[in-house]
């Protein structure tokens, strides 16, 4: 509803679209831009890792052992003489992949679920949302630990388990949006033109509800990455020989007294990414949400 209003006024006054308008506001938010820049760099590094990593992933140098940052090893090496920068780059691939893939799973389930509940309404809506309420009350952190124990520590399962947890809020947001949108004339017009419900949802409802969905997606990624790191830290997430930032932090914490850089650099990588995503999410919320934007 709000996004439709914004489009109207924006077009009358300035002849710009919702997205241009949002981008204009986002550009003024330095923290959000910083977040976007950091994120872009990290994603690029993750994509290019196999070509730009200074050493091979499994290259060891047992004679060297753990060494502090130096010209040959910018971030130092771990106790097996493995280059920490290389480890962090490869770990980042997995941490970011978990963040994005699990969020995508949550996005697809949540948006579909919420859109159907909101559009069909009535008893179907009541049952679907009641289920969401019940699932909401379940202690999921404990359930994910349980899942990882029961089914082994499988990366694909980790994606699914985290995604299956995070879709609930997405479904609630989508349902709220759809409920307010379906009262509007353009949806009535679409109905009277004889479009099928599936087409109406896909072509008219989902695009108009995109703002809040994008904002919430941006804020879900850091919480998913945190969850992965939490599990990996406990040894229940990503398993060696693969690595992730959470796993590197866990190794670093074990030897931090002698080799603090092994804790500090992976920790900085994770914290910086979470910062970036949170700033970007907050910035997008301000840029896309009329209520919070103040103009």
């Amino acid at each position, binding site marked *: 509803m709000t996004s439709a209003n914004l489009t109207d006024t924006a077009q009358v006054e300035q002849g710009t679209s919702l997205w241009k308008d949002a981008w204009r506001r986002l550009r003024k938010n330095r923290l959000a831009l910083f977040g976007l820049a950091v994120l872009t760099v990290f994603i690029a590094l993750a994509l290019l890792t196999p070509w730009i990593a200074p050493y091979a992933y499994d290259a060891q140098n047992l004679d060297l052992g753990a060494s502090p940052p130096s010209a040959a090893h910018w971030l130092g090496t771990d106790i097996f003489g493995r280059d920490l920068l290389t480890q962090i780059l490869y770990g980042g691939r997995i941490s970011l992949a978990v963040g994005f893939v699990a969020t995508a799973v949550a996005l697809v389930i949540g948006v579909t679920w919420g859109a159907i509940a909101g559009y069909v309404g009535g008893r179907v809506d009541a049952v679907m949302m009641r289920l969401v*309420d*019940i699932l909401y*009350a*379940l*202690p999921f*952190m*404990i*359930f994910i*630990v*349980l*899942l*990882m*124990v*029961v*089914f*082994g520590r499988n990366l694909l399962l980790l994606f699914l388990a985290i995604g299956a947890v995070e879709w609930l809020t997405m479904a609630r947001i989508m349902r709220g949006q759809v409920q307010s949108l379906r009262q509007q004339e353009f949806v009535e017009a679409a109905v009277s033109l004889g479009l099928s419900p599936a087409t109406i949802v896909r072509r008219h409802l989902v695009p108009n509800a995109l703002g809040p969905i994008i904002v919430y997606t941006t804020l879900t990624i*850091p919480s998913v990455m*945190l969850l992965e*790191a*939490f599990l990996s*830290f*406990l*040894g*229940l997430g990503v398993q060696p020989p693969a690595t992730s930032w*959470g796993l590197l*932090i*866990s190794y*670093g*914490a074990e030897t*931090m*007294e002698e080799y*603090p850089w092994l*804790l*500090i650099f992976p*920790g900085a990588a*994770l*914290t910086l990414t*979470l*910062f970036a995503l*949170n700033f970007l999410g907050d910035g997008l919320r301000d840029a896309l949400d009329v209520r919070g934007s103040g103009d």
Partner: protein
Amino acid sequence: MWRFIAGRLLQAIPVILAVITVTFFLVRVAPGGPFDSEKAVIPEVKAALEAQYRLDLPLGQQYLAYLQDLARGELGPSFKYPGRSVNELIAAGLPATAELGAYALLVAVVLGGLAGVVASLKPNSAQDYIPMSVAMIGICMPTFLLGPLLVLVFGIHLEWLPVAGWGDIPGDKILPSLTLGAAYAAYIARLSRAGMLEVMSQDYIRTARAKGLPEWQVVTRHALRGGLIPVVAFLGPAFAGLLAGSFVVETIFQIPGLGRFYVQAAFNRDYTMILGTTVFLSTLIVLFNLLSDILAAWLNPRLRAQYGEA
């Protein structure tokens, strides 16, 4: 109010039942039996063990028997610690975890609430930006990173505080409580700031000012009650997070609490222990959510009316 509480209690029952059922069957379909690791167990011994743990019964009967046990408050025997029951292990671990959780909650509410209220009194000033930036760091810094960093700085370099243990050396409870409470202090700071900002623009605050109350009384007597409702509503979910956080904090600081038992049980594949602890913790979380809902409704009559009608 009583109707609201009764309604909420009724809602909690299917949730707890769902937790018990899902956990039970998940654990039962898990690949690998609990005795797989022991090499060449004599068939008679195996049969006796299976009978003891009721693994010889059909699944449905196992489930019903388990429900009966639960109704009597029996969480079952441990697979890995023969002769000890899950009840005993929980009784051994709960005091430390409860104390840690209580201190962490205290840290979160006092530090977070104070920071949020202080920030809300002068929005968009240094008094606002500084605590809120610290809060942002608190949200982005995971517990399992903050804990080791605090140990590194205050335990190892400055040597001000003990690096591990619980109740052995004076001061050894400070770092774990801070570590666990920090993230929630940060959330509470943001929530209470937003809540206070909204309340401070309401008419009744203007009325309070108009009748000549000093500003600190306006804040403490009138604004806080409304402004802190979001914080109270957050306490329920926060409790669940604190429990999960205690897994990490108890592992880092070697605290003999429930969280560490749970993680160890997970590694040992001690299925009955996991099952019992999950059921116990989940029930606790559901009850705590209930409590925080009731408290929030008690503070906010509008919410109470809304639930009363439904």
